[in-house]
C-alpha cells in the first residue's frame, strides 16, 4: 500500500479525512475518503466536482491532488498535507498578525483564485475555513465540492451557493446568472475579517444576511447597479446609504487608503463593476509599503 491512514482528523457529510504518509517518499499527506455506499445515485456530485477540478489545477496556491485511488469500493483522494486553515488562525487570539501578513495572505489567496478563474472555474465556497496553510505558510485554496465551470451567458445557475457570510449580493437576491465576481466578493469579506478579526457580515439567516450586508455597505440602487430593483426581494429592503469614507476609516482603523480602495473594489455591489482577480492583484495596495511578509516567517501556530 502506497499510502497509510494514521489518524482520522475530520468527518464531513460526504467524506472522512485521515492524516497519513506516502510510503515511497515519506511525505505527509491527507487522504479524503469519499463515502460512496451511502449514495443511492452512485458517485456523489461533490466528489465528482472535487476530482474534476482538482485534476486541472496545479498551482502553488491551490491544494495539490497528489493521487486518487480506489480501495474497498471507496474513492480516496490523496491531498497534500495542510496542517491548519485561516479560520483557525483568525480565531486563535494568541496569534498576532500584522498588516504585512494580511497582505501576504491576500496575495496568495488571489493568485489561487485567479488561477481558478483563468481556468474557467468558479470556486463558489470561498471562506477562511477553505483557505488552508501548508507547513511553510503558503495559502492553498481548497474544497472544490461546489465548484463549477464558468457558465455560458444563457445558463441558469443555482444561487444557493457560498457559505452565507461570504455570499455576494447578487446571490442574496437569488440571481440565476452570475460570474466569477461572486468569488471576489468572498475574498473581500475575508479581507475585512482579517483586519477586524471578527466576521464582517455575520447574518443570522438568509434574510438577515441582506440586512447585515446592506447596513454595512449601503443598499444598492438602480443608479449604481442598473435594474437591481427588479429582483423580487428588493422591494422589502430597508434602504441604507453607503458608508462614507470616514465611516470606513473608523471601522478599519489600521487600513491604508489603498487598502480601503482594495476592499471597496472587491465589495462593490454591482458585480459588473466589482474588481476582477487581475485588478485586485494589480492594485496599489500590493505595491505600497509594507511589502507582504515572507509567508514562511509568519507565525500561524500558537
Amino acid at each position, binding site marked *: 500500500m502506497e499510502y497509510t491512514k494514521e489518524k482520522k482528523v475530520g468527518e464531513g457529510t460526504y467524506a472522512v479525512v485521515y492524516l497519513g504518509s506516502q510510503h515511497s517518499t515519506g511525505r505527509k499527506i491527507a487522504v479524503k475518503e469519499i463515502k460512496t455506499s451511502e449514495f443511492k445515485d452512485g458517485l456523489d456530485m461533490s466528489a465528482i466536482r472535487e476530482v474534476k477540478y482538482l485534476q486541472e489545477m*496545479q498551482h502553488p496556491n491551490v491544494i495539490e491532488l497528489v493521487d486518487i485511488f480506489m480501495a474497498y469500493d471507496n474513492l480516496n483522494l490523496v491531498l497534500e498535507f495542510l496542517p491548519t486553515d485561516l479560520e483557525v488562525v483568525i480565531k486563535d487570539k494568541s496569534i498576532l498578525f500584522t498588516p504585512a501578513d494580511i497582505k501576504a495572505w491576500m496575495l496568495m489567496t488571489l493568485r489561487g483564485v485567479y488561477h481558478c478563474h483563468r481556468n474557467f472555474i468558479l470556486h463558489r465556497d470561498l471562506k477562511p475555513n477553505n483557505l488552508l496553510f501548508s507547513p511553510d505558510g503558503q495559502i492553498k485554496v481548497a474544497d472544490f465540492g461546489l465548484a463549477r465551470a464558468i457558465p455560458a451567458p444563457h445558463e441558469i445557475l443555482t444561487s444557493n451557493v457560498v457559505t452565507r457570510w461570504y455570499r455576494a449580493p447578487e446571490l442574496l437576491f437569488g440571481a440565476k446568472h452570475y460570474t466569477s465576481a461572486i468569488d471576489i466578493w468572498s475574498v473581500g469579506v475575508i479581507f475585512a475579517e482579517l483586519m477586524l478579526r471578527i466576521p464582517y457580515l455575520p447574518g443570522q439567516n438568509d434574510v438577515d444576511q441582506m440586512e447585515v450586508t446592506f447596513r454595512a455597505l449601503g443598499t444598492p440602487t438602480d443608479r449604481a447597479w442598473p435594474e437591481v430593483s427588479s429582483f423580487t426581494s428588493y422591494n422589502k429592503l430597508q434602504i441604507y446609504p453607503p458608508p462614507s469614507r470616514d465611516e470606513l476609516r473608523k471601522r478599519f482603523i489600521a487600513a491604508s487608503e489603498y487598502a480601503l480602495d482594495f476592499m471597496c473594489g472587491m465589495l462593490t455591489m454591482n458585480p459588473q463593476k466589482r474588481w476582477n482577480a487581475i485588478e485586485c492583484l494589480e492594485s496599489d495596495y500590493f505595491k505600497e509599503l509594507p511589502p507582504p511578509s515572507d509567508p514562511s516567517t509568519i507565525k500561524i501556530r500558537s
Partner: protein
Amino acid sequence: MTDVQVIEESATNAVTANVVENEKEAPAKSSAENNKPPNYKRISDDDLYRHSSQYRMWSYTREQLEEKRVDTNSRAVASIEEDLLKFRQAHNLIEEEVKILEAKAIPLTMEEELSLVNFYAKKVQVIAQHLNLPTEVVATSISFFRRFYLENSVMHIDPKSIVHTTIFLACKSENYFISVDSFAQKAKSTRESIIKYEFKLLESLKFSLLNHHPYKPLHGFFLDIQNVLYGKVDLNYMGQIYDRCKKRITGALLTDVVYLYTPPQITLATLLIEDEALVTRYLEMKFPSKEKIQEQEPELEPETEKKEAQNDESKIEKDDDQGIENDKPSIDSAKLLAVIMECKELIEETAPLSTEDAKRIAAKNYYCQNPSSLIQKLKRKMNEDTSAAEKRQKI
C-alpha cells in the same frame, strides 16, 4: 519589493508560473520591465491547455494512439485465447466442435474492436440526444465512452453494459443532475446496471473528467470571423454555418481527431468542411505573413493564441527569442491551414460501420467469450439434423 514584482515573484515556484499576464498593466510595466525575475514567462492560453488533463492524459500522436489500441487489444486477445484453451482442455470436444470453435470463437482484431466501439459511441450519441440532454452532455458522454475503450477491451466489458453508465456519469460531471431512478426510467434500464460499472468507468477515465469540447471555440470563431471579415460576411449565412458546424463537431467527436488535435483546430476543420474559402480568407487576414505585418500591424487579441497548433513547441521558443515586448502570436497561417486540413481529412475519411457488420463483430465477440453457447448451438443443430434424418427414414 516594488511594483508588479510582488505579483510576479512566485513565478519561481512552479511550472505553472503564477504571473499576472495582461495588457492593462501599462503604467507599472515600464518600471518593472528591467527587474523581472530571470524565469519570467507569460502564461499563454496554450500553456493553460497544456496543463489540462485532456492534453496531459488524452492527447496522442498517431503512433501512440495506435500503440495504445494494439496494447489493449493484444492483452485482451491473450486472455481470451487462454480462456478458450482452458475451455477446450476442460471439455472433451468432438471434431465438429473443435472445428466450429476454430471458425467462430476468434478474438477480435484491433480494427474490429475500434469499429464496434465507434458503432456504440454513435448509439451513445443517439440515446443521449433522445434523452434531450444538452449538447455538452452528449459530447461528454461520447468522449467518456470512447476513452473507456482506449483503456478496456470490448472483449472484457460489453459496450452495451457501459452505454448508460457513461451518459449517467456525463450528466453528473456536466452539472446536469438526474437521479438514477428517473434516469433508469427514461433510459429503460435499471439502477443496478447503471451504477455497476461507474467506479470502473471513473478509474478507466483516469479520474479526468473535464472535457474541452470544440463548441466554445466555435462560438469564438463565429464572433471573430465576423469581426475580422467585417462587412464581408452575411450574418444570416454565418448563423447557418454555425448551426451546421455544431452538428459536424458532434460528428467529429466520434472520430480520432479528438485525440490528435486541439478543440479549436477541430472547430476550424469543421468550418473548413463548410466553407473553405471563408476560413482561408479569415486565417490569412488574422495571421498575415511577416511582410504584411510590417505593412499594416494589425491588432491581435490574446485569445488567438488558443488556436495555434498544440504540438508546436517551436512557437514557444520563438516567443522567448523575441522577448516579452514582442509577444504577439507568431502563427503561420499556411502551417495552421495544413494542420487543420489534415484534421479535416481524418474527419471525412472516418466511415461509420453498418449495422450488419456491427452484428457480425458483436457475434464473434460473444462466441469468443462464451464458447459453450457455440457448442450447445452446434449440438442442437446436430440433434435437429439427426431427428430430421430419422423422420426422413421413417417416410
